[in-house]
């Protein structure tokens, strides 16, 4: 069974890859990618069932915070049922989305701002080294160059220093990091394609 799954994965991976380079494989690549999208949709349902299973289990065992788990399951089932009956475009569903889901995400975003400010303040306690000092100086220079201040722009920061730091030093560093990430992604992808790494099929 494991060999069978590996053969399917490798064959499909190679055909999709060849589709990027050879015109003869374009149609099969499109077909396989469409199948993958459908499977990803089905996986979403499986993921939701996993979420329900984990939280109902917590409620059943009366674990710490199980009230929140119960709330999650009720809200999830209610949204799912209402979504099926009313359709996502219905006014009630839009109210649910705009009145609950988006504000909750916005709140987390607001919380993140405070968290990041706190992390920046504590940075030198964690790493008292040259890299951290550069990190903070860069962040301060970018902020001074881009923030809207009550007394107007700080001379030279917005027009000269910020573009110099962000477009030359920071962009250069970012490209270096991204090249490293791209190489890692390429080699990891090839390991999966060759069946060396097989995070599927068990054993």
């Amino acid at each position, binding site marked *: 069974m494991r060999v069978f799954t590996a053969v399917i994965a490798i064959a499909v991976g190679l055909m999709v*890859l060849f589709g*990027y*380079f050879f015109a003869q494989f374009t149609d099969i690549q499109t077909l396989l*990618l469409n199948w*993958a*999208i459908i499977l*990803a949709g089905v*996986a*979403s*349902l*499986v*993921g*939701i069932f*996993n*979420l329900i*299973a*984990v939280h109902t*289990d917590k409620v059943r065992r009366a*674990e*710490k*915070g199980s009230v*929140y788990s119960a709330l999650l399951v009720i809200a999830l089932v209610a949204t799912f049922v209402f979504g099926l009956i009313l359709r996502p475009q219905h006014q009630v569903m839009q109210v649910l989305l705009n009145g609950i889901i988006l504000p*909750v*995400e916005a709140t*987390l*975003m607001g*919380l*993140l701002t405070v*968290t*990041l400010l*706190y*992390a*920046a303040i504590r*940075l030198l306690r*964690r*790493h008292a080294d040259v890299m951290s000092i550069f*990190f903070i100086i860069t962040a301060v220079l970018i902020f001074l160059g881009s923030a809207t201040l009550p007394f107007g722009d700080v001379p030279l920061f917005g027009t000269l220093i910020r573009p110099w730091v962000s477009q030359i030093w920071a962009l250069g560093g*970012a490209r*270096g*990091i991204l*090249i*490293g*990430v791209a*190489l*890692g*992604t*390429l*080699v*990891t*992808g*090839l*390991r*999966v394609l*060759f069946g*060396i*790494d097989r*995070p*599927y099929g*068990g*054993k």
Partner: protein
Amino acid sequence: MTSLIALGILTLTAILLLVISLVTRNSNPRFREIPALTRLIRTLGLSVEDGKRLHISLGHGSLLDERGGSAFAGLAALRIISEKTSVSDMPSVASAGDPALGLLTQDTIQAGYQAAGVEELYVPTTSRVTGLTPFSYVAGAMHIASNENVSTNIMIGHFGAEAGLLADISDRDYVTLIGASDNLAGQSVLYASTQDALIGEELFATGAYLGAGTSHSASLTVQDILRWLIIITLLGGVVFKLFARAL
């Protein structure tokens, strides 16, 4: 022309990976020290001894786009971690923010238990999909980190700035955090919020440092070779442009 270059790089990488894997299959690789990974290796042993669990967050990278690379690197690390911590009283918990990744997480943990010979100890609810958007995923992961007797949070995968929330909850609960992301915003947030963050391609070295096998250490050698080729090409381009301008 671009696709020809891409095909050339791909073929070269594939050949290098296969050849180096074969040549180095019996050798003992030596790596430079990465503090975060040294801490991770130490944490694996300690978690079994002190009866606490590890929480491995694999991020919300989809397997259908370029973010899949970091997700697969996280799965490779998860495979080793689950095998090494399978005999613990408190099994490791893994969370994912993508449903397909969640399925592979289940399979990977189960494979780790099978490799350790204790498949009967595997609990399916130890791998979870905690949310389908970045913030809902992190909110679910935060709940695990603070309520399930976790000693270490290991974040390996695709995380954006929302990683700061998980880092903050770990800090408040005195939980060790080891973070790695393929996203620039995520990396900078993790650098500012954690003691040891993995920067750039260090994320992809996790498997090799944890002893995932020859192919993982060969991958590091291939990455080094390709990096030098890119450096030479960039420098060559600069020199060529200077001379072309002078002429």
